């Protein structure tokens, strides 16, 4: 792994690299848990753990191409396990990965509050993109998220803070 430290004007951004196996295992684990948890706890169906993994790796890698590719792969895998056409989650998470990487290049995302706000925002970005694409490409009506989505977004943000702290143990800092 190579160290990638880039200086842009007054911001010194730290790039983290991960073992590719860890990325695959973490992505698969997120997809598996996403498929299993609702079997035992139906309320967890609202969680989108692959989204959290996508955001985390995109933010940490600070590479837009890596971010969008991770998002595309996780999204396509998620599509493959769903009943809908393949590509909806792929495109959504590709954009989210790209956006998260772009954000990670500009700000320091190691702080918990930044991660909290970032995940909170990316949850709405992801939901909005998915609804728009679903409306545009599949012709389905847009269901504007209600107040419940606010709680779900907050849960995602809190969970992301904990999960990111856990995954930070496996990253290699440069």
């Amino acid at each position, binding site marked *: 792994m190579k160290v990638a430290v880039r200086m842009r004007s007054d911001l010194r951004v730290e790039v983290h690299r991960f073992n590719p196996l860890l990325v695959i295992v973490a992505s*698969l684990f997120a997809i598996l848990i996403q498929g299993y948890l609702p079997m035992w706890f139906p309320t967890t169906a609202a969680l989108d753990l692959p989204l959290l993994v996508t955001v985390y790796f995109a933010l940490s890698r600070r590479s837009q191409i890596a971010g969008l590719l991770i998002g595309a792969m996780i999204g*396509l895998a998620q599509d*493959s396990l769903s009943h809908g056409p393949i590509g909806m989650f*792929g*495109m959504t998470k590709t*954009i989210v990965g*790209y956006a998260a990487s772009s954000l990670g290049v500009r700000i320091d995302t190691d702080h918990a509050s930044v991660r909290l706000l970032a995940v909170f925002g990316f949850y709405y970005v992801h939901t909005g993109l998915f609804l728009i694409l679903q409306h545009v*490409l599949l012709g389905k009506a847009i269901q504007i998220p209600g107040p419940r989505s606010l709680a779900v977004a907050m849960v995602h943000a809190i969970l992301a803070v904990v999960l990111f702290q856990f995954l930070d143990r496996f990253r290699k800092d440069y």
Partner: protein
Amino acid sequence: MDTLFSRYRNAVVLVAVLFLQLLLLAFQIKRDKDVPLIRIWAIGVITPVEKLVSGAVRGVYGVWYDYADLRQARQESQGLLEEVSRLKLERHRLLEDAAEARRLRALVQFRDSTPSVTVAARVIGSSASETSRVLFLDKGSESGLRPNMAVITAEGIVGKVHRVFRGTAQVLVITDPDSGVGALLERSRLHGALRGFGGFFCQLRYIANDEKVEPGDQVITSGEDRIYPKGLPIGVVTSAKTGAVFKEIMVQPLARLNRLEEVLVVTRGVDQEIPAKPEPGPAVAEAPLAEPPPAPVSPGAPASGGKPVADTVAKPKAVPGLEGSRTKPETDADRLQDAYRATQSQKSEAQRALGGLLLPAAGGGVTDMARQPPPTAAAPAARKAPPTNAAPGSAGVPPAQGPLAAPRKAPPTSAAPAGNTGPAQPQSAPRKTQPKPPPSTTGQSPEGAKPQQPAQQKLPGQPPSDSPPPLTWLSPHSAFRIPHFFGREEGR
């Protein structure tokens, strides 16, 4: 070109990736076909891991669930054991309740069937001494109990109330050596006195050696003691041996005296019917036929059960040559007997005309236990008459009134226990030689002669207390032995 691509590389890659996915999506939508290859790859990658994770999760869950099951099963087992113990106790309690209900039902049936007025009581204790056979009841003077009231069960008599307190009463059981009961052998109609013998047996005394008593004979109350109503079962003869003067007869009480829980206290005794004699007694058969029947000496109480005398009191079979064959009186006793029958017949007709209200014989069976004993001056006199065993009037019936006084002096006159034994039937023949009573406490009136019961309710057919009692034949047996026996009781 390279510079432009390198400058917008990220955006180009993004657009390219999005475009590819868009094409893929458009292909699926346009052709309405799935992309099985991607799904197969994805599922092929995901499902083995899913199986692995699922197995692991199920294993962990199964282990945890089994462990939880075991713990739950153990707790459930402990709960079930506690419940079983509780149900066992409840079953035992219910069985006890059922047994008590059966006993009480039998007691209630007996109470309903007996004409006496009774009070149910529960046995709450017994004597603390081996030599004293007493019981304690949970009813006392508050419930109307008074001393010398009979205590009975459906099986037989238990004893008499000895001492009464406010909420409890002490009962002297018939097996106590100091207890005594006026008894009657049901088959042979022989009267005697039942004494407690200690343990679980009683002794029937004052039955002459020449009388025939066999084991298995039923012993019932004679009512002569004025404590126990007539006709109540006492016990069964278990052995009868020839003694010095009298037979030594052992009687086993019918009441389970060692397992009593509920009893009835007779607050107002009413004599019951005595079953008819099943077969002629040996005394009748062995009686010399040439002798005339004894003359009536003492009046007796009315017969029991409210039925005519002939129906209620056992009547000895007519001995050929005595009543049935005699056409005209030959002796004074015969004349007196005829006069008695004529008088009784007239009285019966008159009382039938009155509706039977005052019919002493027909309405009999009511023993006025509360009636004051009449003067018994005639009794010693009668006993002094050499061959005459006069009744002592132990049942409160004047022993010698009207036409009875004279026959008592007649030579072969036998005396019956006057009073509540009912009008005794003429004996088949005079006894050979009646043994004299033991000279112990003679002269004392029997304990039962004391006023022990409250004034008895006038029942139909009950003779008025001031009216002359009906005539009766006297038994040659109880005239001398009852005062002796109950005289000792009185002193207690």
